[in-house]
């Protein structure tokens, strides 16, 4: 058993095992601790009977809602990583640009009453503007900031991406000020819908459903179109694809555009659920979504979707389920702790993410 574990986590095999059992001891202790917390916490919470079924259902729905936003953002990370092996740190801020663009249109629709009269038309308009803005900015950043670093090895591109992130934040702060603005809150979004006998705010359902649709469309684009095939070819092997006559530049631009579009959608959905937009809003969801992408196996499109939903769920349900039962005060303060512990556990025991097998084999 220990052998299997040792080889799975990439430790030197058997030979050094005798000398380094302490590593295994610690890893086992870690595993055991997590299991004890999870199982003990869950049992404790359920025994306490604090939460009713309806509340568990609510927690799951809340998790899926924010998870769908994470998933949309994570797609941008994962596609860019697949094609360029670049962690596009600024991707969260590109989400912010989409949300901001949507804000101005949404509030003018709100003033003119269009948002209440024909919600579908208004939503389509807002989404379109956000997608155009995010896509444009994503493509521009690639063109101006990332392309010169395309063939630079090492960590310089990552630092450049971090620089782009700050640049976008400060630009938007300069343009629109540091204060918070909020999306309109039309009545049709607030109305509750019955799902399996539980009532759920309509906006949550809309966001989850539309996010899934957007992801399916993306999946079809990647699997069925010529450009999508080229994209997959480049992410398999850039040089070979180039030799086969694929225009790598075009593919990269296309990838950034797709990622930008998803970020634009994510920005608007995020803002429709959580309302507030400000220049720093993209940073935290960006980091979380990056975690989600890794969780699902970076480079894998379905992985990013699953990772996003999974992370959202764990963040929402986890503190109540695991920590409440063992009597930890203020469990929701430790929400990030749970999210990151999950991330690390996945990385330790399944080093290439939930769906990352394919990628992993290739790179090793």
């Amino acid at each position: 058993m220990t052998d299997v574990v040792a080889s799975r986590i990439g430790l030197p095999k058997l030979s050094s095992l005798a000398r380094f059992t302490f590593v295994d001891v610690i890893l086992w202790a870690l595993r055991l601790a997590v299991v004890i917390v999870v199982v003990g916490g869950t049992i404790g919470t359920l025994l306490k009977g604090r939460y009713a079924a309806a509340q568990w259902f609510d927690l799951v729905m809340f998790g899926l809602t924010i998870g769908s936003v994470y998933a949309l953002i994570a797609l941008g990370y994962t596609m860019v990583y697949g094609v360029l092996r670049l962690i596009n740190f600024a991707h969260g801020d590109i989400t912010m640009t989409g949300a901001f663009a949507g804000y101005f249109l949404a509030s003018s629709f709100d003033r003119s009453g269009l948002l209440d009269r024909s919600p579908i038309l208004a939503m389509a308009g807002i989404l379109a503007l956000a997608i155009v803005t995010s896509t444009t900015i994503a493509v521009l950043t690639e063109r101006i900031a990332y392309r010169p670093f395309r063939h630079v090895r090492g960590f310089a591109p990552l630092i450049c991406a971090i620089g782009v992130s700050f640049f976008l934040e400060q630009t938007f702060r300069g343009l629109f000020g540091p204060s918070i603005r909020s999306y309109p809150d039309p009545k049709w979004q607030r109305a509750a819908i019955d799902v399996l006998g539980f009532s759920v705010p309509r906006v949550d359902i809309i966001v989850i459903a539309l996010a899934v649709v957007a992801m399916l469309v993306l999946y079809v684009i990647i699997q069925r179109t010529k450009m999508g095939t080229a994209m997959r070819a480049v992410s398999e092997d850039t040089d070979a694809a180039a030799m086969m006559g694929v225009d790598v530049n075009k593919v990269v631009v296309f990838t950034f555009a797709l990622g930008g579009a998803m970020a634009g959608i994510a920005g608007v959905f995020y803002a429709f659920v959580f309302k507030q937009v400000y220049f720093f809003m993209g940073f935290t969801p960006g980091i979380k979504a990056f975690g989600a992408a890794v969780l699902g196996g970076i480079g894998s499109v379905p992985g990013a979707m699953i990772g996003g939903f999974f992370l959202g769920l764990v963040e929402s349900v986890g503190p109540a389920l695991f920590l409440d039962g063992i009597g930890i005060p203020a469990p929701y303060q430790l929400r990030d702790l749970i999210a990151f512990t999950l991330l690390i556990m996945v990385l330790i025991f399944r080093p290439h993410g939930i769906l990352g097998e394919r990628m992993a084999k290739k790179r090793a």
Partner: protein
Amino acid sequence: MMAGAAARRVAGSRRAPPSPLQRAAVTGLVFGILGLYLAIVGILAMIHGRAIIVGVLTLGQATLVAIGLGTGAMIVRGDGEHGAWSWSTLLRSLFAGAIAGGVLALLVVAMDALDLRAIFIALSPALFEMLTFDLGLAGGVLVLIGGSAALAALGALLTLGPRAFRRHVLIGCIAVIFFGVFQELIQIMMQYGDIIGAVRETIYTWEGLTPEGAILIFVIATAISLLAARLRGGERSDAETPPAQRRNARIAKAAVAVLLLVLFPLLAGSYIGQVMMLVGLYILMGMGLNLEVGLAGLLDLGFVAFFAVGAYTTALLTADSPHALAAFTAIPSLSYWEAMPIAVLVSVIVGVLFGIPVLGVRGDYLAVATMGLGEIVRVIVQSDAAAPLLAGAQGILQIPKPWLGNIELSDPVDLFYLTLACAAVAAYCAWRLENSRLGRAWMAVRDDEDVAQALGINLVKVKLLAYGLGAAFAGLAGSIFAVMLTSIYPSSFQLLVSINVLALIIVGGMAACPA
């Protein structure tokens, strides 16, 4: 800068070579948009408030001038190597300059006609006044377009002029801008002493440089530049200088630089001391991270965790507060000199513990895993759950400053020397490590883990040593950080610190210790 690069690309990489006139239009447009960006982001109005030469030039106006000159210079650059003087160049520069100014003029007109400020908060009346030069709408537009065109022409002429001449003028201008922009700092440094004070009064008023002062600085800087060029020219001519002598000269130069670095805070006062000390702490951390990232190739975004461990250990051991260990355990309250090695030791232990779970994780996954671990440390430190031990959001206060005999090291300058001394020792250790067997093993691991393992390198030991020793440096920095502030809060240990340190060593050049 970025826009400049873009301009070159836009101007240079069209499929069909564009006509010179088209290129001029694009160049003008790019520079105009650069100006437009600075204006609507609010930078222009902000730096307009900073005078360079009192009553003559503000930093904002200097930026506008630079945009104008840059347009012209770019036109000439775009002509390539064989760019030479012609009427066409002049006309194109005028044209491009007018376009660049025209973009800003459009903004002015739009500001006058529409209420843009409802969306773009930076488009204030102050910006309007600045861009119209207090001449009203029509006058402002004319000055913007005309002035920009004239400046572009001047920029083109300057670029076409002799290289040497251009360089000296440029250095003079940069010196004036430097002395103008940093006038506050320079004036503070020039407070003491009668002669220096008198010099200060001639070149500065309280708001910025006087016109006479600006001319003086320009002349001196240009003269120095000329002189330096003359000297260098002389040096180059006697090429038969023996290499040994040249190396000696280089070492002498380096020694002078180090000496200046060491003495500078002493002369410049506590603020510079404070800033240099923060820089010193970053350098200390950078050296530690360099062991991990640069040598062993382990990309670590959670480095701040070790920094936090060092700071909190020091605080818990020395502070005069209810959260100190001395307050509720048998552990006595320690002095800083006793607490520092313990802090370093604890950091090493945490570093090794930190490294164990992520031993098998590679590459970018490792970056995420370490980032997660770093965040976990911060969340725990901040949480209410750990508050009984670590004080949570309130932080640990009243950490005493270190004492040296009877002297309290309280001034930033004193602490700067402490940092410097630690950094020197750390640099020595890092240098020895780099050239040791361990250092070579790290590099082997960095270059290819599998090969390294095949060569008989014990990956586990080598990697854990990298984490542990890297953490030691950060722990040392954290320990100094705690006594520098005398109070620590969890908010000081953000992910951003890790990123900054990483940026530092990447900019400095990976794996190179002096960087």
